[in-house]
């Protein structure tokens, strides 16, 4: 029983990360109709800026490095939106935008290698250790991940329901022409959304440093699994992203209690293919497949 709870807890922890990844690209998809294939590189970039430059090079305290990293990633997101998402989404085929974001991913990967070097590194004293809860040990990083995820979900919920820019984001996702007739500058709104997405990527990047270290491939797997989470939950839906993320995290973790661990990463993709075959709309009906 103890090991069950242990696995469940770990599953929820990773599940939260998949949630955030699914939300981060769902926001952009809803706003612009584009899938950001560079999203895992956004996550990696956030981690490199935070750990590589702000903490290790400039020796800033964590408490200062986090907001600065978020700010820089928001600016990076805005520039990416103005340079890539907005112009490419206006072209008459989505394939240009798909190629655009894939190329962006390549450029970011190579640029990161040039700036910070190919060797992985770690932040030695960044959220290490665990609390004991009876027999179950709760690692501090999973606890932090859960708290951060809940905080981000609450902020997003508040924004979408109560703020002018958030309600306008929902309108842009629903009907761009009608939104512009309300006076919404749709391009600006999309730029804001991509900036927000960049900030969530940055949070994910920082949170997974203790789990995966900082490396060029640190976010590839969670990027794919977060993508799977969105489809399993219902593509284009924020609640779907949450449900799908948690489901994949928990199933994957529980699996490692019964099956060979080498196949652990396969679980998410088996789930993904299963859902695509049997229930392509996902657990909560997706808007995309309408």
């Amino acid at each position: 029983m103890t090991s069950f709870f242990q696995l469940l807890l770990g599953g929820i922890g990773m599940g939260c990360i998949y949630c955030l990844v699914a939300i981060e690209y769902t926001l952009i998809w809803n706003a612009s109709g584009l899938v950001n294939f560079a999203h895992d590189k956004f996550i990696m970039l956030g981690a490199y800026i935070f750990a590589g430059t702000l903490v290790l090079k400039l020796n800033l305290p964590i408490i200062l490095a986090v907001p600065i990293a978020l700010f820089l990633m928001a600016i990076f997101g805005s520039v990416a939106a103005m340079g890539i998402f907005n112009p490419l989404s206006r072209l008459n085929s989505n394939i240009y935008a798909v190629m655009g974001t894939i190329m962006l991913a390549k450029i970011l990967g190579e640029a990161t290698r040039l700036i910070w070097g190919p060797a992985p590194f770690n932040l030695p004293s960044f959220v290490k250790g665990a609390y004991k809860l009876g027999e179950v040990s709760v690692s501090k990083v999973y606890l932090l991940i859960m708290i951060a995820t809940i905080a981000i979900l609450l902020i997003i919920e508040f924004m979408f329901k109560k703020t002018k820019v958030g309600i306008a984001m929902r309108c842009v996702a629903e009907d761009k022409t009608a939104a512009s007739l309300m006076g919404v500058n749709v391009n600006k709104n999309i730029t804001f959304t991509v900036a927000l997405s960049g900030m969530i990527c940055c949070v994910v990047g920082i949170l997974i440093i203790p789990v995966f270290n900082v490396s060029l491939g640190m976010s590839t797997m969670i990027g794919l699994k977060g993508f799977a989470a969105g489809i399993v939950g219902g593509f284009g839906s924020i609640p779907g992203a949450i449900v799908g993320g948690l489901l994949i995290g928990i199933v994957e973790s529980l699996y490692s209690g019964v099956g060979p661990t080498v196949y652990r990463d396969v679980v998410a993709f088996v789930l993904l293919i299963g859902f695509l075959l049997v229930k392509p709309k996902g657990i909560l009906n997706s808007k995309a497949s309408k």
Partner: protein
Amino acid sequence: MLEINNVDIFYGKAQALTNVSVCVGEKEIVSVIGANGAGKTTLMKSIMGLVHPTAGSITFKGENITKLAAHDVVKQGIIYVPEGRRIFPSLTVYENLFMGTYSKKYSKKEIEDKIEEQYEFFPKLKERMDQLGGSLSGGEQQMLAIARGLMADPKLLMLDEPSLGLAPIIVEDIFKIILDINSKKNIPIMLVEQNAYMALESSSRAYVLELGIVKQQGDASVLIEDDDIKKAYLGG
């Protein structure tokens, strides 16, 4: 107040409007009638900056708005209630109305007052305030779309096919509302309609569009008696 001068619009190589000139004065209700594909909606879209003319100019209160984007035209005070209502289906009635004030910098209190004002004008909407826009009936959606337009205190309200797809009794309600908006709130209205009879009945002046060209124009009371128009648009 609104002046459209010799406007040409192309979609690719197809010309949708040719040398169209239309004006709307203070306090007027002006309607544009014509068959499907005559260019009525294109005319509205060109005013809103959703399509841009290749020739001609559009001015509003003396300012040239020909090249403005839609969200900037809205800031000038021109509100367009598009064909098919285009309310936001997953937003509540209240949120839809709230979005109507996006272009304005109203305080919370002012927004609440404005919404209350719409509820007085459209009592049905008050009953439905927490329902999703998509769950309303066609007539209610049209009222919501008009109410949402009124939230921004328009200096000119443009209505595109407000009667489309509605039951005759609801159509009468809608036209009553249109007349009320004009007379009680002193808002000039530009109306595009396939229901030519209702449109001519309610407006002071009218334009007849045919294949992108202004075929006839004049006082609505004169046009409604015109034999050609009777034959083409009023069923005899």
